[in-house]
């Protein structure tokens, strides 16, 4: 029976093909807008995560300031600081395997008489070797306790100075001369591209040549790796309570943030989730307009077919059958619109990816869009279909 009613409903849509297609177009645009917007948000999420994949699961980063305040709109820079005392305290906590810290700031580099202001990072070699998976283009990483050596970012080495910096050359940072022992691999652009323009020194050397750290015991970030078999979450809690004790602050006034891979993932998820909701919400308006189009078409169609409804009732169609016919019609409009919208979204998504905007359509979004557009059709058609079903047979037959 349902198959017969579906056949009949599809035939009805076909016989008013222009109107059916225009209504379907409304849904196509709605679905296209939603799926594309979600694809962009998903693509962004994927992109940021891939960029941050250098943070391994067992790594923890401690930074000054409350990152939540910074993420959610505080325009004021933090005055909070991390110190070497903090690092020593964390190093003593159980479950901490390796620990290192960075000092990050601007410094002047001189090479063959050219002076450039660039970003210098003084860091414990353990960070390269044990915690993060940076790759080198040539040369080697700094060794433990090695002084007077530098690793140069790919762009800084190749694009900044008239003459390329190569392994074995000497560069001057601040007032000291360093031996270049390695060049980093090109990062491939994106938010990590900044790493290409950085010069890496040992932490001790960094403190001497980066002006803002000279003569202080401040640190920019503390990085650590948890011991095998220890949960990063447990260590995270211990660091939190230890630093709150040292800084004499309570949970709600925390002047530092402890970031695990899970925490970062969660924060990224929050941001891209909000973005997805925002973009999807805007796009949903177009689907709403499309669904009003369906309702309008169905009302029109029912008005035109009042007599036909009367005939069907006279020859024995129940109210439920009439309702099914019209709901199938509106559902099919939604489904076809959803399907076409999806195909076009896929093409658009490929196109914008080509243009450099990351986008990704997940399988669940595809299935969701189809199911959703079908239900949009059914819901939009519900009231018209109910009106049709409740129409008294005699009155419908009399309709001219």
């Amino acid at each position, binding site marked *: 029976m349902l198959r017969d009613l579906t056949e009949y409903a599809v035939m009805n849509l076909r016989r008013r093909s222009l109107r059916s297609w225009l209504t379907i177009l409304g849904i196509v645009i709605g679905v296209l807008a939603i799926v594309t917007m979600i694809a962009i948000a998903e693509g962004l999420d994927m992109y940021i995560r891939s960029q941050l994949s250098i943070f391994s699961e067992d790594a923890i980063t401690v930074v000054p300031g409350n990152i939540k305040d910074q993420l959610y709109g505080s325009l004021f820079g933090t005055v909070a600081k991390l110190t070497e005392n903090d690092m020593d305290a964390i190093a003593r906590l159980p479950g901490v395997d390796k620990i290192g810290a960075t000092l990050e700031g601007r410094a002047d580099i001189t090479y063959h008489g050219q002076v450039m202001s660039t970003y210098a990072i003084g860091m414990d070699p353990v960070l390269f070797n044990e915690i993060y998976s940076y790759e080198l283009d040539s040369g080697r990483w700094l060794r433990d306790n090695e002084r007077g050596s530098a690793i140069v970012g790919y762009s800084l080495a190749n694009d900044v100075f008239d003459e390329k910096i190569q392994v074995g050359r000497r560069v001057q940072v601040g007032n000291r001369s360093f031996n270049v022992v390695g060049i980093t691999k090109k990062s491939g652009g994106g938010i990590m591209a900044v790493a290409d323009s950085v010069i890496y020194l040992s932490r001790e050397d960094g403190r001497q040549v980066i002006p803002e750290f000279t003569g202080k015991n401040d640190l920019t970030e503390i990085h650590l790796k948890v011991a095998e078999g220890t949960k990063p979450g447990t260590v995270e809690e211990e660091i939190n309570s230890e630093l709150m004790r040292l800084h004499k602050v309570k949970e709600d006034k925390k002047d530092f943030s402890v970031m695990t891979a899970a925490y970062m993932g969660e924060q990224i998820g929050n941001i891209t989730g909000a973005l997805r909701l925002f973009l999807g919400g805007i796009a949903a308006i177009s689907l709403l307009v499309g669904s009003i189009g369906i309702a309008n078409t169905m009302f029109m169609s029912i008005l035109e077919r009042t007599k036909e409804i009367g005939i069907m009732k*006279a*020859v*024995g169609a*129940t109210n*439920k059958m009439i309702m099914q016919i019209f709901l199938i019609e509106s559902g099919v409009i939604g489904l076809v619109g959803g399907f076409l919208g999806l195909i076009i979204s896929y093409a658009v998504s490929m196109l914008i990816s080509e243009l450099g905007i990351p986008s990704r359509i997940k399988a669940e979004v595809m299935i969701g869009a189809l199911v959703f557009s079908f239900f949009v059709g059914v819901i939009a058609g519900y009231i018209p279909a109910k009106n049709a079903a409740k129409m*008294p*047979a005699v009155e419908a037959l009399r309709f001219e």
Partner: protein
Amino acid sequence: MANDEGKTGGAAGKKRIAHEWNTITLKGVKKSYQEGMFRALDGVSVSVKKEEFLVIRGRSGSGKSTLMHIMGCLDQPSEGEVYIDEIKTSDMDDDELARLRRKKMGFVFQAFNLIPTLDALHNVAMPMMFEGIGKSEREERAAELLESVGIGSKIRSYPNELSGGEKQRVAIARALANDPDIILADEPTGNLDSVSAKQVLEVFDEFHHKHGKTIVVVTHEEYVAEMAERTLYMKDGKISQYSELKAKVK
């Protein structure tokens, strides 16, 4: 198909004699419209015998179409009771009435009321679709019915490609689709020329006599009434006059 029991058609020549039991019974039926402002039926009590050919006559606005709609369970009375084969239908809901119509009734209208986007075959097959009969079976039966009303060559024609008489024969075939006991026709010849009208009436006559269908025809045409076994006249929502059954009830 009608029950063979009680037929006396053979002995009485061509005429068939209705059964003595009632297939449609109306008791004190009133029907008002516009919140009682207009009364279309005003206390009608009438019975239609099984296998009877009944004609309802009357002027426009006399209530004859309303009477047919209530007999055919297309409409419910405002007051009074309706029974189809001893089953009270006046308190049934829409869907129960729809199922009853599908099995028991076939309708033929003055304006044909074919679905313009379906060809003759699919118009006739539609009531069988609602009955849940499979596609091949219903199309086969629809073709047979169209053949039996004399337009077997036009099964793929759409209503706009058919003449008035042909349309009405498609409508009759549709009315017979689920092999109902009762055919109700509202001015079936009203839109037809005399030749077509004659052909359509012959089809009614045949299904009445050969297949024992109960036929109720609303008309104001004298020659249609002549075919009937009984005629009742409507005036101002009441039955004003009966004619006797032409053949004696057994």
